[in-house]
């Protein structure tokens, strides 16, 4: 006698899974912007958070130690506009690191020399790396990336 097998319930693909509420997605994104790694800590990934904090804050602080410059948005020719607005956006992505540095009055003029220039790039790149961390936190919070 052949037993009729029970039909399996259809598997829900990730796209069909209910999306977390927007209110659950905003805190990790905001935290990730404010403090590098804080979004991952909020999402219960403490080791990733620690590594992100060490890497991003380390790069930012190394940039400050090299007396890198913060960008101020300026308009002019296309190159100046893109460079200064892009750099300013990168600086802003550092969140509280940038805000605290500005509030404490850090200011650095353009100085000739490779080390200062490296410092400026370190600060901007720390911001863009934090942007990657923010996007990652958003993807985890919104269920677009599997937890591992």
């Amino acid at each position, binding site marked *: 006698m052949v037993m009729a097998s029970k039909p399996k319930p259809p598997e829900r693909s990730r796209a069909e899974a209910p999306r977390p509420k927007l209110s659950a997605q905003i805190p990790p994104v905001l935290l990730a912007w404010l403090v590098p790694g804080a979004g991952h800590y909020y999402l219960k990934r403490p080791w990733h958070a620690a*590594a*992100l904090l060490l890497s*991003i804050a380390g790069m930012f602080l190394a940039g400050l130690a090299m007396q890198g410059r913060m960008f101020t948005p300026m308009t002019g020719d296309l190159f100046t506009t893109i460079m200064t607005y892009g750099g300013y956006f990168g600086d802003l992505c550092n969140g509280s690191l940038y805000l605290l540095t500005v509030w404490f009055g850090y200011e650095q003029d353009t100085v000739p020399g490779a080390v200062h220039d490296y410092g400026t790039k*370190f600060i901007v790149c720390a911001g863009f790396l934090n942007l*990657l961390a923010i996007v990652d936190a958003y993807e985890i919070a919104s269920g677009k990336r599997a937890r*591992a």
Partner: protein
Amino acid sequence: MFSPSHLQASLLFALLASTVMGIVGRSTNRDRLHYGLYCFGYFVAAIFVLGWLMRLGHG
């Protein structure tokens, strides 16, 4: 003031950037480690090749 040489600054950048890229770029810890090492290797290779190109270009 922290004054690293060109090579030290580049290696520091490569180390920190590849750590972040490894964490956000893959979904499992094993893949993260591999991808981080992969990125770091390519950073170092690019530093080596571009360094020699600039050295040879300057004569």
